[in-house]
């Protein structure tokens, strides 16, 4: 850690007083990373990159956006038409929001599959869920800003959910609206918060990384590194591996931005908001559809709201629901089956969230919602008690010699 390892005298002078170079050096070379991470471990870096893209494009968009009910829609169209490359910046912002959720969903699923939420990484996981919640709030408020039909009616539906809370519900809704309906005051506060929250997310991301670096990354085998033979330095091994992931991410993002920029949006949001005309089907952005399906599966409003938030709240206590000491699904044959069933269930919920709440869709939503909670609240605790796990390898370096491993 001494400053002598830097050749450049300026770097040495600065580092002696402000050890930023030592810090970077430490992260790059001294921070041990398990050598067996697969490409699923790219998605943390990709999420960070998506956040950076969102903040940079968002700041530029805010320079030309007008947060007023009479001008918001048109100011977005001015960005699309008259601001130099405004269409590009706006389409990048719009589509990176979707990609951010794709990346984060994969990141969460990776954590679920490989047991990354287990001791000693519970707080790391919880901070991740906090980031996810903040992302959802930010994305929701961002979608309101163009003040199209879906912006307006989405905002109306979602803010109205809070009125289900007993006693204080109506006051909370009035506070969210800044008045007695979704109107200019609502748009203004959503703009203000939409600008603020990404920086709050960045702060929690720093904590997330601090917690990560305490014990390092989990890995596909899920056992701790037993020595230097199991680890490699972050740079150059994982910097270059992340680069491959970044290239794929940017390639897919570019294809979407340049060739299908509106594929993940809803046509109704190109109609200016109209409080007197309700769209035929109010649907949120695709990344909220599973939770929207859970909300609508319950015939009672308060019950629906509680279950919807419960669907995320259950993630907070996940480390204490699944107590199996074996982390990775590779050594948990039953858990693995239920993981894939859960994934199918979540995708089914997403599909149902985009369908009208009628007939067979309601029944299916209820079954899928029940399964979602059964998975976390019943199946995982039972599995961690009764599942016979496969023997674990001795170490990361010798996964094939693991015949004498422990079992839970």
């Amino acid at each position, binding site marked *: 850690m001494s400053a002598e390892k830097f050749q450049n005298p300026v770097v040495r002078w600065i580092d002696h007083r402000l050890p930023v170079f030592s810090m970077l050096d430490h992260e790059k070379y001294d921070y041990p990373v398990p050598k067996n991470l697969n490409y699923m471990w790219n998605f943390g870096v990709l999420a960070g990159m998506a956040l950076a893209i969102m903040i940079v494009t968002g700041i530029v968009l805010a320079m030309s956006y007008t947060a007023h009910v009479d001008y918001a829609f048109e100011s977005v169209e001015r960005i699309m038409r008259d601001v130099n490359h405004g269409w590009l910046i706006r389409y990048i912002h719009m589509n990176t929001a979707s990609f951010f959720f794709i990346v984060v969903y994969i990141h969460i699923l990776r954590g679920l599959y490989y047991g990354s939420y287990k001791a000693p990484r519970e707080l790391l996981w919880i901070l991740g869920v906090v980031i996810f919640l903040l992302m959802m709030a930010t994305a929701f408020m961002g979608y309101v800003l163009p003040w199209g039909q879906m912006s307006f009616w989405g905002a109306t539906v979602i803010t109205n959910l809070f009125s289900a809370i007993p006693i204080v519900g109506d006051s909370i809704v009035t506070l969210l609206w800044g008045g007695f309906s979704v109107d200019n005051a609502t748009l203004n506060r959503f703009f203000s918060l939409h600008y603020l929250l990404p920086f709050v997310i960045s702060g929690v991301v720093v904590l997330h990384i601090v917690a990560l670096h305490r014990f390092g990354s989990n890995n596909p085998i899920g056992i701790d590194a037993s020595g230097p033979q199991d680890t490699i330095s972050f740079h150059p091994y994982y910097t270059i591996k992340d680069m491959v992931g970044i290239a794929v991410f940017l390639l897919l993002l570019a294809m979407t931005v340049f060739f299908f920029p509106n594929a993940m949006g809803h046509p109704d949001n190109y109609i200016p908001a109209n409080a007197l005309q309700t769209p035929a089907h109010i649907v949120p952005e695709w990344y909220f559809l599973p939770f929207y399906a859970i909300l609508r599966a319950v015939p009672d409003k308060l019950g629906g709201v509680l279950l919807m938030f419960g669907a995320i709240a259950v993630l907070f206590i996940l480390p204490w629901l699944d107590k199996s000491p074996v982390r990775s699904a590779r050594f948990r044959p039953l858990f693995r089956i239920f993981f894939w069933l859960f994934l199918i269930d979540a995708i089914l919920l997403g599909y149902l*969230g985009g*369908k009208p709440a009628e007939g067979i869709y309601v029944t299916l939503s209820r079954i899928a919602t029940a399964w979602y909670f059964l998975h976390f609240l019943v199946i995982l605790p039972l599995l961690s008690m009764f599942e016979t796990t496969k023997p674990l390898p001795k170490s990361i370096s010798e996964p094939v010699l693991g015949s004498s491993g422990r079992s839970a």
Partner: protein
Amino acid sequence: MLKRIFAAMLACTLAGPAMAASGNVELQRRDWSFSGPFGTFDKAAMQRGFQAYREVCAGCHSLELIAFRNFADLGYNEAEIKAIAAQYDVQDGPNDDGEMFMRPGIAADRIPSPYLNENAARAGNNGALPPDLSLITKARANGPDYLFSLLAGYKEAPEGVTVPEGMHYNAAYPGNLIAMPQPLYGEDVTYSDGANNSVEAISSDLVQFLMWAAEPKMEVRKRIGVAAVFFLSIFLIFSYLAKRRIWADVH
């Protein structure tokens, strides 16, 4: 290949919300010059589409987001744009006496709307509001096909369907009952280039023009897109090769 997988992936995940709006709607699928990653606008068709808009649609439908200067995209030069703008009367003011006044349009003006406000538009159309057309091809699912099908979709109502007074039967409109009377019957406009002016041909020209109005930067977007995808593909190949080389001593 990757693109096809990705498109299929998109189609699967997005089928839900995208299909949600469809009722009993008959869509005619057409190949548009602007479809696909290399798609471009047909300038001659857009100019004809503008003529058709002006002579058929503009009586009721505004095009608020388009300024005359934007017509450079249709292939008009500066003098032609000034001449087109000058054919319109635009309200300006207030002048030094505090009065609003009319003057001929200039290139920087937006196309004037047919009605002063929404109430006037509704009063002139049996209570129905003719929507602004600036974004219409993006504001409807499968916009270009939908718009084409709608313009060519006026039919005799099938038996058992009663069409109320002031409504019209349209096979492409959700619910099939539309307030807009049939706008095109064929030979509604006479094109100076002698192009076909059947209902289908005029509809197709209008779709070209209105797709441009909704997405005027499409051509430059796709052009940059091809370059970006090319660059990123190379970037991916080199990243992967570098990764293999660096990791060679780990396995």
